[in-house]
């Protein structure tokens, strides 16, 4: 079965502290992994996809196939990072996304 697990509903960190949002997945095959972000009063938007291996807004995520994880990391959190973060997977091609339940990141000044 395809499943994405984000164990933390809420994560609060101080500004300047490191951030790690956890994501584990279950999928038979080779999935594509994504992080989507939703800022207050904005639409859901793509933050990262594992195949592009980019760093966006200082965030990175590495796909660990052995641990079936795709944790999102940032060395120094900023207040503007406060948002809802969703980890998602899909099969190859334009297949529908399977989402985790999301983690709300709150960065405290």
């Amino acid at each position, binding site marked *: 079965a395809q499943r994405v697990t984000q164990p933390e509903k809420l994560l609060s960190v101080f500004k300047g502290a490191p951030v790690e949002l956890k994501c584990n997945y279950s999928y038979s095959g080779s999935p594509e992994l994504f992080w989507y972000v939703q800022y207050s009063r904005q639409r*859901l*938007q*793509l933050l990262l996809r594992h195949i592009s291996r980019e760093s966006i807004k200082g965030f990175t995520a590495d796909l660990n196939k052995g641990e079936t994880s795709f944790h999102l990391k940032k060395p120094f959190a900023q207040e503007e990072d406060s948002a809802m973060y969703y980890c998602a997977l899909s099969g190859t091609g334009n297949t529908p996304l399977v*989402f985790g339940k999301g983690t709300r990141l709150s960065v405290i000044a």
Partner: protein
Amino acid sequence: GAGVSQSPSNKVTEKGKDVELRCDPISGHTALYWYRQRLGQGLEFLIYFQGNSAPDKSGLPSDRFSAERTGESVSTLTIQRTQQEDSAVYLCASSTLGQPQHFGDGTRLSIL
């Protein structure tokens, strides 16, 4: 540059009524998806259209839910005889081959 557009943004209706939600995908995007997000939950897949292929309806929760798409343009999601558990934000996304999905703002549906 227009993104994915959904209407209405909010819909309040009485239990038992039918509702129709609309999605305008990004021009040229062959794939269109509907998702539902109930309070405190992640997004759950409902239905997926890819070009002229038969839609993947595997996520529709009951036969009260249906969706149509005209070619590679507008899609409508219809919920018949609405129930209170249908209250949710309904999100539409579109994509082109090999590219990630772009989401609309969603329709917040409230069933009284």
